[in-house]
Structures are given as C-alpha cells and as structure tokens.
C-alpha cells in the first residue's frame, strides 16, 4: 500500500516537474562549458558538483513549495481525524521528492554523459562517490526545504529559500578567500565542491566521508522536523544536525586544498605502439590520435636538426604554471594538452606542431614578458624552416626579427645557438632566451 501511495505522490506531487526542471536547468548550465569536461568523466562529475551552488538552493525551494500543499489544500481538518501518524503520512511525500531529486541529478549527469561516452577511455571508479554524494546533497536539500516550508507555508518561502541559498553558497567561499590562503576544510559543509583546474585529480576519501556524514545528519534533521507533531520533537531535530556537523568536521581534511588528491591512474601515460613513442595521460587517451602525427613529426625534426634531441613525447600531468622553474628532462618532450568537447586535442595539428617545437622542444617554465616568448617562437620557426606565424603571440614582430637575424648566421652557428637556447630553456635557469639566441650563450 505504501508503494501505491508513493506512486501516486510521484505522479501527483511536484516531484515529476522538479526532476524535469533539474535535468533541463542542469544541462543548460553544463553545455556552455562542454569544452571543460567533454570526453572526461571526472571533470563532468566535478562540474556538476560545482553547479550545486544553483541546484542546491533550487532543491530547497522545491521542497518548500511541495510542503505548502497541505496548507493550501486545507486538508488539516480531514487528516486530523485519521489514525495514521504524521511521520508515516509525510514519508511518501518526502520519498517522492527524494526520488525526483536523485532522478534529476542522475538525469543531468546522463545528459552530460552523452558527450563523454563516445570518446572517454578512462573511467575512474572515484567518479561514483562524487556523483552519489552530489545526489545525496540534493535529497538533503529537498527534505530540509519540506521542513522549512511546513513551518512557514507562505508563497514567499520557496523563492526566498532559493535566492537566500544561492547568495549563501556564492558568498561562503568568497568570505574564506578574502581571509587568506588557508581555506578551511569546514567549507565541505557546503555541498558545493570547488572544481580543480586540471583533469588529473580525484576527491579524497575523507572529504567524501565528511560530506556523507554531514548530509545524512542534515537529512535526518530535516525529516524529523518535517514529520514531528510536537514542538518538543521538532526541537530534537537540532541534535542530529549539530552532531553531524561536529563529526563531519572531525573527519574532514584540514584544508580545502587537501580535498582533491592526485589521481595516479588518470596520469598514467598511454602511448602509441609505433616509434617514436608519443604518449598522453590516461584521462586524455582520446586525444592520443590527434597528438600522434604532430608528436612524431616534432621528434623527427628535433632529431634531424639538433643534438641531444628528445626521443619521446609525454603529457605533463601538472600545468606548466605550477611547475615554477624546475629543470625539465632532456629525453622527453613534455606537452600541455588542451582538450576539446569531444575529448580530442583542442588545437589543430599544425598548431600542435608549433606548440611542440616552441622553445626548441621545451616546456615553458616561467610566466614572463619581455623577449622570452618571441625567442621561443623564433627557435620553433627555425626548426619549422618557415617564418613565425603572425597570429601567434609575437608582440611587435619581435620573433620575426630574431628569426631573421638567426638566418644571417652560418648554418653551424644557427644550429649551435638554437641548441644553446634549448639547453637554457630545459634548465629553467634564465628567462633571457633572446640573449641566448643573439649572443650564443646564457648571461653570466
């Protein structure tokens, strides 16, 4: 009988429409940034978690809206004469809303998965808790909304909750940010998971545990408050909420930075079977075919024109700007790969080749202005045997001038200077690569 009532509630409450709204709104937010997660599971799941800053307040408002049904329909008198306890009566209502939220959240994920499945080669199991905790969080929100909506059954409650929740979730991290770099793990009490910048991480188990404990406690408190008849019982709802917060904070990582941890499996390199070897991180396996051609060509050019050329291409799992000025390996050509919406390389093959040969096959190691970039581009142009393209970063034709000057020198000298630039760039010891190219040696 309970199942029958639940079915009726699913069809006749606002559950169905809430689920549909969640999927539509969710997909409408995901697809404008499809480049950031297309073809990759974990980034999709993490983007979805970030959008909880909109979805969570929306679930809160949906719960409050549903809770108004009883007072709007004036059924209190009729139901007051029936034997079934209130908590049993409201359980199917809460159940239907919970089912709707889970279905909506998973539906949104499925809408995103359409752009992941065709190309994704790497499926991290760590994805499952990220999605599950997200779904749990919207369930907790909708039940909390039911509780608040029951207490304040005004037409203004749902929009006020939605807007208030949105403002809270947006300002919460900002408040911590302005306090300095030490963002506390307490931020995990917000269901929003702030997305890391790269595709090579997963979420720490302790972060999941803290959030599950907190959200289950919040869910219990919400239902207790919603279902209770007497004020004394309602006051008891504070107990699980406080207890949950305390326990969650105890197990949560101390700082927000520890919430994400490296995903070693995502970083594992997958390589071409033919030589010379070109590799990408497992999470970007779908882009290997795009990199193969430019990668092998770059290795061939370097081997033909320079001494001590690299013998393989590999994808760097950390962004160059985090690497500071660490020396780079000479034998491997490291590449920072940008991925497009379908999991392939974002840049066309020719641009990839220019990128690989940039700085004579070295990785950027400093974010400087002046002549650093033009010098690297001039070296690439020398390797390509053609003038540096104007569309690339070359303020004032600086690269073209360097390249022209280089071309005036005898062939052996040209080769020696580019080799010197490569050595200096690998060492990451100087930013004056233009000086190396024009004088033939690094400044003392």
């Amino acid at each position: 009988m309970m199942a029958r009532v639940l079915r009726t509630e699913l069809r006749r409450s606002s559950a169905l429409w809430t689920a549909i709204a969640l999927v539509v709104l969710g997909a409408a937010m995901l697809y404008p940034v499809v480049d950031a997660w297309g073809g990759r599971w974990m980034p999709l799941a993490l983007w979805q978690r970030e959008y909880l800053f909109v979805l969570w307040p929306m679930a809160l408002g949906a719960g409050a809206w549903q809770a108004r049904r009883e007072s709007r329909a004036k059924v209190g008198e009729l139901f007051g004469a029936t034997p079934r306890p209130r908590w049993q009566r409201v359980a199917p209502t809460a159940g239907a809303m919970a089912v709707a939220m889970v279905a909506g959240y998973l539906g949104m994920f499925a809408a995103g998965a359409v752009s992941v499945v065709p190309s994704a080669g790497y499926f991290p199991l760590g994805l499952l808790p990220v999605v599950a905790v997200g779904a749990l969080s919207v369930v907790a929100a909708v039940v909390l909304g039911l509780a608040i909506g029951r207490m304040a059954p005004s037409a203004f409650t749902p929009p006020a909750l939605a807007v208030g929740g949105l403002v809270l979730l947006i300002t919460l991290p900002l408040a911590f940010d302005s306090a300095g770099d030490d963002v506390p793990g307490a931020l995990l009490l917000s269901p929003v998971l702030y997305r890391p910048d790269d595709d090579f991480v997963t979420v720490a188990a302790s972060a999941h545990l803290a959030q599950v404990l907190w959200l289950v406690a919040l869910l219990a408190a919400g239902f207790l408050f919603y279902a209770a008849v007497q004020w004394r019982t309602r006051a008891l709802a504070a107990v699980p909420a406080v207890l949950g917060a305390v326990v969650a904070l105890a197990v949560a990582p101390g700082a927000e930075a520890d919430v994400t941890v490296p995903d070693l499996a995502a970083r594992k390199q997958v390589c071409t079977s033919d030589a010379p070897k070109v590799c990408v991180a497992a999470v970007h396996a779908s882009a290997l075919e795009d990199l193969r051609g430019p990668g092998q060509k770059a290795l061939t050019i370097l081997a033909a024109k320079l001494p001590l050329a690299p013998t393989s291409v590999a994808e760097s799992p950390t962004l160059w700007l985090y690497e500071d000025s660490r020396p780079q390996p000479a034998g491997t050509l490291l590449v920072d790969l940008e991925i497009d919406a379908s999991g392939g390389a974002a840049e066309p093959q020719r641009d990839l080749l220019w990128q690989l040969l940039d700085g004579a096959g070295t990785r950027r190691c400093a974010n400087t202005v002046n002549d650093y970039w033009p010098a690297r581009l001039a070296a690439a142009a020398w390797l390509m045997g053609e003038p540096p393209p104007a569309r690339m970063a070359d303020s004032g034709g600086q690269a073209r001038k360097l390249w022209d000057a280089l071309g005036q020198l005898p062939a052996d000298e040209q080769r020696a200077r580019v080799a010197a630039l490569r050595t200096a760039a690998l060492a990451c010891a100087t930013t004056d690569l233009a000086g190396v190219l024009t004088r033939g040696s690094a400044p003392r």
Partner: protein
Amino acid sequence: MIRTLGAAETAPTTYIGEIRAQELRVRAGRRMAVDGLDLTLGTGVHGLLGPNGAGKTTLMRALATVLRPAGGTLELLGSSLQGRVDLRALRREIGYLPQEFGYYPRFTVREFVEYMAWLKEVPGREVPGAVQRAIERVGLADRADDRMKTLSGGMLRRAGIAQAIVNDPRILLLDEPTVGLDPEQRLDFRELLRDLAADTCVVVSTHLVEDVVAACTDVVLIDAGRLVFQGVPSELERAGDSGGVGDSAAERGYTVLLRQHRGSAEGAR
C-alpha cells in the same frame, strides 16, 4: 468483495450508544460553543439540526476527535476521550466529512479516496475493493479517474462522502453533506443513509429540515451548545401542530421547539 470481520467487530458491544456525551463542553476559539450537552446516540441516522452558531460544527469536530473536550465526558464506542485513550484505534472506526472539505486537486477521485483509506489504516489488500465500493455508493464511478479539480461542487461533496465511508466506519460524521447536491442526488443520498443506518451511527449536520425528516431515524436539535430536543422525526412534525412558522410540519415543529426552548431558558434566568 467480502470483508472479513475483525474480532472487535464481532464482539458484543458492551456500551450503550456509539456516542455518549454528558455535560460536554467544547471550546471553539474563546467561545464555549458546546456548553453542557447531554446526548446519547446509537446505531441509526441522526439528523443534527440547529440555527447558525448553535455549535453543530464544533460538536462534529469533537466527535471526529479533532477537538479535545474542555469539560464533561465524551465516550466514543465505549472509550472515554478524557483518559489515555487509544485514539489511533478509535479513529480507524470514524468517517468524517468536514464542513470545509479539503482535498488535493491533482489527485484523481480514486487516488484521493485510496489515499484516505490508507490514512485510515484500512488493510492494504482491502483498499482497492473498499475504494471502488465507496465510489460506486456515491455514484461517482464514471468520474473515478478524473482529477478532483475537475469535479463540480456536488460531485466534490459526493467524493467527500466516499472518503468518509471508505473505511466502513462505525461512527460516520457528515457536516452539511447535501450542500451542492441537486434534488435527484439528494434522493440518492437519502437512500445511501438508509442503507448505512443498519449498522452505523451516522450523524448528519444540516440546515435542511426535510432531509432530516426523510432520511433520519432520529432528530437532534441543539441551540447555544445545549440539547433542545431529541426524538423521532414524527415527534418533530407533531410539535409543529401547535403553530410555528414554516412550509412543512417539520419546519414548523423546528421553530416551535426552538422558541419554546429559548423561552424557558429566559424564564430560568
């Protein structure tokens, strides 16, 4: 569909009258709307009459266990509402159509009656049959799968009666059930009442004196929260022989009895 009778139903009744009130006082807000009412009602259909503000609805709400008595005693099915009574078991035996019948407009008639059966803790396997029977008895079978919000006023009232009888209550409380019913539907409704009278204590609160005369086995007239008259409909009609205003004997009896009561109440003061 054959319903199995529970032990409680087959056991001989050990009480006099399904409803017994002595010196009953019930508050409606600040006002004592029922104020010293003595009443015993057994099986049958009892028409509850009285002018506006007589305390009819307050009495109905107290009988429905929605309001707690403020004084006196009230016994339903032999258990007193003053002590630590098992309200849950008692409420399973009550059917109630409030004056203002609240419902979920998006539910179909069947879904809503089914939901009410669930709230009244009708055993799960009996629910579909009981729901169908209740809907058929009020003549809504052809609208059973329509949304509540599409029903007319009279149909809503009938849906309200269907939910009230779905648990085969032993006490059935109908507060103005005939509002919005057309003449033909009122005839059907009287038929239904006669049908229920055999094994149910039905209390029908109404303004329509002719409904009471036509369908009730017993007339209860209250005024200012007190009992004015209790007797069979023919006694009410006989009271009208000595004058009074109204188009029928019963209506004349109604006004005569009220006037007499008010007169004696003034005299007592």
